[in-house]
């Protein structure tokens, strides 16, 4: 693409939820990939610039939310048939032994989005490793990114403020992610889907009225009424933020891996494993909010056993996560014992 997001011959996973953004993204990636592949014979001089030659995959995460994700996955399956792309679906139930329905039953509707977000992030990376892709593309649009910038400002989350505006992640350890629609307005995407008669799923998640993002969204729309360029201006502001290492402690933490699952983590236990530990032990608050105290209280005495049950001594009461390093290309999910 013109921002040089990928290289010729890259294998790319499109994170597909069945919603408007990912459906339009899959459609456009497929369209451009084929259009410029066929042109290569005729336009040699364009080759360097325009030939994509990408190997595309659809990657979906099944959070296990009945009445929502099961229906949207049907949309993804229909799109898979239409676009003829290989599809991989990973479910929370298989990965973590907890579906979102189970989690909400356990912890209620407060904070459930924390679980979902953390689990999805890791699930996508796991899926990408299984597919052997070089990159994940997501359907985040300009409106989404501007909302996220506002939310990070309101929350005072300096570390994410700039990072959330990168079109492509810069971390060395994980599979790169990019947002080809970073500068594409939501309106354009919806219009495109409408006029192209694309089949997308349009119901909001039943567990997330998502009040906080909703406020940012309303505020953003009000701003836009006064100043039409607001969205791109806010993204630009986010990009322009530079923070020094001292004011931004998260930049200087040493990247490592989680003791238990091998996923990239700046602590001994990654966020997903911490949340899971809380769920499995009936202490769902373990990974939420300021976790330092609870972490110390509940994990120090368990620190030894954590090492144990990640290796061989799995008991039925302790479902395990497959180690990240054990994931193989094309490997299917192992079921917990």
């Amino acid at each position, binding site marked *: 693409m013109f921002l040089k997001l990928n290289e010729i011959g890259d294998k790319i996973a499109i994170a597909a939820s069945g919603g408007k953004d990912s459906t339009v993204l899959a459609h456009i990636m497929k369209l451009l990939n084929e259009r410029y592949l066929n042109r290569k014979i005729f336009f040699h001089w364009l080759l360097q610039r325009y030939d994509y030659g990408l190997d595309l995959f659809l990657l979906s995460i099944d959070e296990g939310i009945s009445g929502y994700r099961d229906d949207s996955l049907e949309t993804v399956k229909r799109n898979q048939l239409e676009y003829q792309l290989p599809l991989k679906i990973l479910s929370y139930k298989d990965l973590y032994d907890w579906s979102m329905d189970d989690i909400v039953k356990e912890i209620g509707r407060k904070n459930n989005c924390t679980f979902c977000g953390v689990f999805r992030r890791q699930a996508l990376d796991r899926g990408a490793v299984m597919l052997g892709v070089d990159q994940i593309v997501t359907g985040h649009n300009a409106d989404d990114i501007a909302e996220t910038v506002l939310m990070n400002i309101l929350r005072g989350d300096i570390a994410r403020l700039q990072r959330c505006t990168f079109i492509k992640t810069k971390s060395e350890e994980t599979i790169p992610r990019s947002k080809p629609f970073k500068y594409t307005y939501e309106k354009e995407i919806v219009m495109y889907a409408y006029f192209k008669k694309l089949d997308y799923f349009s119901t909001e998640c039943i567990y997330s009225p998502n009040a906080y993002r909703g406020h940012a969204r309303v505020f953003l729309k*009000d701003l836009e009424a006064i100043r039409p360029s607001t969205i791109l201006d806010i993204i630009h502001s986010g990009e322009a933020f530079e923070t020094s290492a001292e004011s931004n402690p998260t930049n200087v933490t040493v990247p490592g891996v989680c003791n238990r699952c091998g996923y990239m983590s700046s602590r001994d236990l990654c966020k997903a494993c911490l949340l899971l530990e809380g769920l499995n032990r009936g202490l769902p608050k373990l990974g939420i909010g300021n976790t330092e105290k609870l972490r110390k209280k509940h994990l120090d005495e368990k620190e030894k056993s954590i090492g144990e049950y990640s290796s061989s001594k799995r008991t039925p009461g302790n479902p395990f996560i497959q180690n990240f390093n054990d994931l193989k290309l094309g490997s299917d999910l192992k079921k917990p014992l």
Partner: protein
Amino acid sequence: MKINLEFSGGLELLFDGLKQTSVVVEDSSLKNLFKKIESELITQNKELFLKDEKLRPGILVLINESDWELEGQYDYQLKDEDTIVLISTLHGG
């Protein structure tokens, strides 16, 4: 005169899943059509459609397949057999 209406992108949920319908109006502006929709067609969550007589941000309007921002928005004068498409841009995905 008869106006054709289409709801999509999740907006149909405010109309009990109704995706297409038509209404008969007297000579009127789009603004009055919205008020009519609000008072006669919406079955739930009226506040997600109009607030202070303004359409909620995030709902796209097409007048005969053309963006309403090019057609004078609320002041557009309806003609017989016009098709108005309302699309919600709900979040997610």
